[in-house]
């Protein structure tokens, strides 16, 4: 388990630049599927022919992650950047990044506390005022290492810590990719399409074309979602709780889950003794929105692994939650033809 999770989270894959993670996923799924299809957007679709195919089931996890793109190289060799996907710029000061295919190391610094007015320390730093320092002394020096439009990812290794916890970048949604790969190890009566999508973080764009291509009857999205069971958040605003099992969505800003699928997921969890939780609150949205409304429509649902401090270099999840997510998806696939 551990090795695959590390390979998946350490790969680079900012929305629009999924080449590195795509390669990792193709290598992983090729032995497990009948056909690997890479579409024009760069989505990876692993097709596994059913033993008695009557329906098409699409499993979906996005392989892209939030990150940065280099927008300008300054005369002094510093790089200006924009965020790709939603990142709270307050987490950026004093972080390390890797830029481009070569993984050029850089840092997002902030002027020393000694040089600040006391009032400055109370205000958030905005990404547009920040820059990346790669140690270049001039534009020419920087241009040898970096080009405009290069993407950058957080430099953050996967760390196992505490009691079965994991810290890494990109848990959203490499946990979903992990679950899909595990699911491909089973055999099913229906045709299974395991879809690793691009550009979810910039507007569910990969899933749109993938779903059109596949035309699924049933779509199940596996996500990493916000876990807000932390201090200063009232219990009724805990969207998910760490360690309580996979979170089943009723609705979010992109889609309402199919009620029969939700009931069936709950039934699967209960029958197999898998802990689960209902995601509370309707914030966020994911590929289910595009899959559900592709062509003439499909039934969809979403299950998620709770991730604290999501969209940061140090997101945290519980390995039990991931394990139970894999189990629940397997249970679902075993019986979903009856839906």
């Amino acid at each position, binding site marked *: 388990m551990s090795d695959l999770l590390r390979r998946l989270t350490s790969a680079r894959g900012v929305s629009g630049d999924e080449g590195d993670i795509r390669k990792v996923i193709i290598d992983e799924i090729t032995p497990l599927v009948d056909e690997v299809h890479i579409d024009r957007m760069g989505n990876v679709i692993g097709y596994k022919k059913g033993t008695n195919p009557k329906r098409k089931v699409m499993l979906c996890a996005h392989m892209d992650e939030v990150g940065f793109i280099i927008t300008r190289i*300054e005369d*002094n060799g*510093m790089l200006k950047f924009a965020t790709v996907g939603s990142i*709270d710029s*307050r*987490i950026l*000061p*004093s*972080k*390390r990044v890797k830029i481009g295919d070569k993984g050029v*190391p*850089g*840092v997002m*610094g*902030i*002027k*020393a*506390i*000694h*040089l*600040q007015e006391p009032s400055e*320390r*109370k*205000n*958030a*730093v905005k990404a547009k*005022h*920040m*820059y990346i*320092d*790669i*140690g*270049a*002394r001039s534009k020419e*020096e*920087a241009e040898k*290492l970096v080009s405009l439009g290069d993407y950058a990812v957080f*430099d953050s290794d996967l*760390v196992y*810590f*505490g*009691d*079965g*916890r994991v*810290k890494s970048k990109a848990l959203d949604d490499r946990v979903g990719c992990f679950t899909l790969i595990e699911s491909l190890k089973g055999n099913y009566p229906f045709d299974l399409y395991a879809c690793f999508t691009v550009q979810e973080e910039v507007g569910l764009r990969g899933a749109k074309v993938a779903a059109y291509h596949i035309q699924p009857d049933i779509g199940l999205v596996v996500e990493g979602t*916000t876990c*807000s*069971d*932390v*201090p*200063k*958040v009232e219990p009724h605003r805990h969207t998910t709780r760490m360690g309580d099992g996979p979170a089943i969505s009723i609705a979010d800003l992109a889609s309402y889950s199919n009620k029969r699928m939700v009931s069936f997921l709950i039934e699967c969890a209960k029958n197999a003794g898998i802990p689960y939780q209902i995601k509370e609150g309707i914030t*966020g949205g994911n590929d289910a929105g595009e899959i559900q409304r592709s062509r003439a429509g499909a039934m969809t649902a979403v299950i998620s692994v709770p991730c*604290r*401090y999501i969209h*940061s*270099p*140090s997101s*945290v999840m*519980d390995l039990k939650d991931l394990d139970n997510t894999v189990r629940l998806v397997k249970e679902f696939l075993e019986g979903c033809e009856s839906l």
Partner: protein
Amino acid sequence: MDAKAFLKELIDIPGVSGYEDEISRVIMDAFKPYCHEVRRDAFFNVYGKKIGNVGQKGPRIMLAAHLDEIGLMVKDIDDKGFISFTNIGGVDQRILLSQEVIIHGKERLYGVIGAKPPHLQEKGETEKAVPMDEMMIDVGLHPDDIKKKVTIGDLITFKSPLISLGGNMVCGKSIDDRAGVVMMLETMKELDKLVFSGEVYFVATSQEEVGTRGAIISTYSVDPDIGIAIDVTHGDTPDAPKDETHAMDKGPVIAVGPNMHPKLTERLMNVADDNEIGYLIEVEPGLTGTDARSIQVSREGVPTVLIELPLRYMHTTVETLNMENIRKAARLTALFIASMKEGWEECLTY
């Protein structure tokens, strides 16, 4: 060990002000091959003594670079096991979110600093920095387990190992002032290539970040004729005022102002000029925020110079330094020490 490897080793060793036992032991071991005598006092100051290799009578010179670092301290542990904290030394609360830390409890615990997610913030809240007292450390253990291992008052250090950037730049935590300690070791190596007289004490000082307290004790103890403080100063970055920062590639910085002895500083600059070592000048109108402030007024007064290494993003986990400046500063310092031959007192007369 080469300078970069030594710096890499040093910054990973905890040594928050007042708790410098471990880092001081490592520094003692590193000094031993180059010194006649190495000792440590009750304040965790480390003293490496080198005796001149010619018979002439020379001054007793004390170099000082601080070995302590800024950090955090456990303030409370809540019912769910989240750990709140406060700072030791100057820490900008805006750098803390998403940092990896080590809590030094009964055992070392890894954790990350978090806060409530942005989508739950009230309107306008995202314009404000998250205050330190609304952050917490998540160590991923059961609260009962945490309370067995962590106590209020336990120290916390950042986890941010040294990495290399472009050119000769390196980046990591606590380069302030472990780079100064590395520079002292490099000065020892340079001195071994030169002829010098007198006694030189290389002191890695404790508790600088909380008021140069190690320097107060150690200067009294050494009772030097001349003091050389070594610390970092601000490197140039686009968001910092130009007149308070220094270029990263123009050599070490020599400070001038009331905290520094004018004649001695002039001599230091002359040595640099004679040997074609480039340097920058920092004007310090009052007391410097370095050990120099305490060395200068020890006992009956100690003529003191201050040599600084430009450092970007000071007191963060991505402090950035040009290694070339360590090399140049060490060479300059060794040549300066070697220039103090018989009759050295003359350079101090007003």
